[in-house]
């Protein structure tokens, strides 16, 4: 048997396959996807049934999007080595850099989601607003404007959700991430985790059934996309097969299949299918599993991706 032994004579830390991205990036990707999902789900509800009655809770859930996105942005900011240089992202637009796209997309997200969420405030919530804000909320609640805001919110939410995956898939140097499936996968997972988070609140029964049904469909899509992701890896070059091996038999296998595939997809899929057939389950158990699975998906992919390389020595 041929021997091929690489001996690194200088113990350089950056060659020891250290992780340069820690917890902040997966948390940011998770919360970014969650915000995107909330934006899409709340907007689609308005577009599908503009005259329909929405519960007060469902209306207020629009405000979760900017909240979770801001926490995610804070995590991203913590990851920067030079945190106070963050304005530099807005002194350039780099069309080939997904992070540059992300920075500029976020500028569109905040005003849109804020206007949409303001228009969703009714009754005592709108009465509490300052007069100028109340006037803005009245304007945003006008049917024609609301429809446009919902379209914009859904479109920008979709862009944001896809971007969280493209940020990784643009890195051809990391074979595990170098897959066009990551964008749609993170978008679908974002929608699924958003539906799960919304199920934790006291929405009315009709909304609850709708969210459960939607979540079931999104989980099925996520399973299909994960299958394509692995198919792409395991039918690719030796490099991509080695990268796939990190999740299929390698050090990340147990955590990925335990937390993401079994805990985050299989159990919720089975549980929600049972609920559809009339079996009552716990209100919070399945949504919590989906949320943990969504975070674990990004956490493990970010960690494993950094461990995958071209072995360019």
């Amino acid at each position, binding site marked *: 048997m041929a021997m091929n032994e690489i001996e690194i004579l200088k113990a350089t830390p*950056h060659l020891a396959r250290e992780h340069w991205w820690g917890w902040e990036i997966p948390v940011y990707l998770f919360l970014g996807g969650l915000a995107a999902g909330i934006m899409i789900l709340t907007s689609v509800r308005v577009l599908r049934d503009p005259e329909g009655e929405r519960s007060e809770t469902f209306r207020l859930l629009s405000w979760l999007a900017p909240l979770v996105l801001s926490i995610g942005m804070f995590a991203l900011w913590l990851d920067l*080595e*030079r945190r106070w240089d963050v304005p*530099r*992202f807005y002194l350039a637009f780099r069309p080939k*850099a997904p*992070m540059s796209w992300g920075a500029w997309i976020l500028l569109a997200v905040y005003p849109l989601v804020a206007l949409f969420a303001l228009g969703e405030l009714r009754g005592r919530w709108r009465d509490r607003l300052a007069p100028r804000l109340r006037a803005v909320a009245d304007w945003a609640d006008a049917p024609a404007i609301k429809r446009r805001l919902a379209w914009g919110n859904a479109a920008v939410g979709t862009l944001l959700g896809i971007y969280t995956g493209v940020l990784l898939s643009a*890195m*051809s140097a990391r074979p595990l991430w170098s897959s066009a499936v990551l964008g749609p996968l993170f978008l679908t997972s974002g929608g699924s985790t958003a539906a799960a988070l919304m199920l934790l609140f006291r929405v009315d029964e009709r909304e609850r059934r709708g969210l459960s049904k939607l979540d079931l469909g999104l989980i099925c899509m996520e399973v299909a996309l994960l299958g394509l992701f692995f198919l792409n890896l395991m039918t690719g070059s030796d490099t991509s097969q080695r990268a796939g091996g990190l999740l299929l038999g390698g050090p990340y296998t147990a955590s990925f299949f335990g937390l993401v595939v079994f805990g985050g997809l299989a159990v919720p899929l089975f549980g929600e299918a049972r609920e559809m057939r009339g079996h009552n389950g716990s209100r919070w158990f399945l949504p919590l599993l989906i949320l943990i699975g969504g975070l674990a998906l990004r956490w493990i992919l970010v960690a494993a991706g950094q461990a995958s390389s071209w072995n*360019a020595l």
Partner: protein
Amino acid sequence: MEPRYVMVLDTRRCVACSACVIVCKTENDVPEGGFRDWVVSETRGRFPALSTENRSLRCNHCAFAPCIDNCPTGASHRGPGGTVQIDRVKCTGCKNCISACPYDARFVHPRGFIDKCTFCMHRKGAYTACQTVCPTECIHFGDANDPGSEVSRLLATRDHKVVAPEAGTRPRVHYLV
């Protein structure tokens, strides 16, 4: 014609003494724990028929540089002679370029910017520091667009390779075999 700086390293001459690593750290004030170049010794074959190849590695100053493409602020940019340089003022330390580099040639400097080999551009395209101290004279640096340069002559007359050509970045550090 604009110069196209390349580095040519002779693997038949390299003895993996690491002088290039030490002088680079001294010349460029590279902080503890960081390295702009490093040495790899690869042994191939089946005992007792073994062969060893020593390589001094660094940023490849790729023609298609994914670090430049993925930099959101323009800190990673094309410098003189087609080299890849980092503007320390523009760098936010987002580490996107570290993810984008197939050669793991970049590291985080304690002062927060990303650092790597510059082909010693502060020397204005003359000898690089690693080249000046190499005891076996295995490191050659120069303009590949000048047909009379030593690097052009070596690339024209000797078999050579680049590291991980399959990464598709067209590296400008060549290894004579």
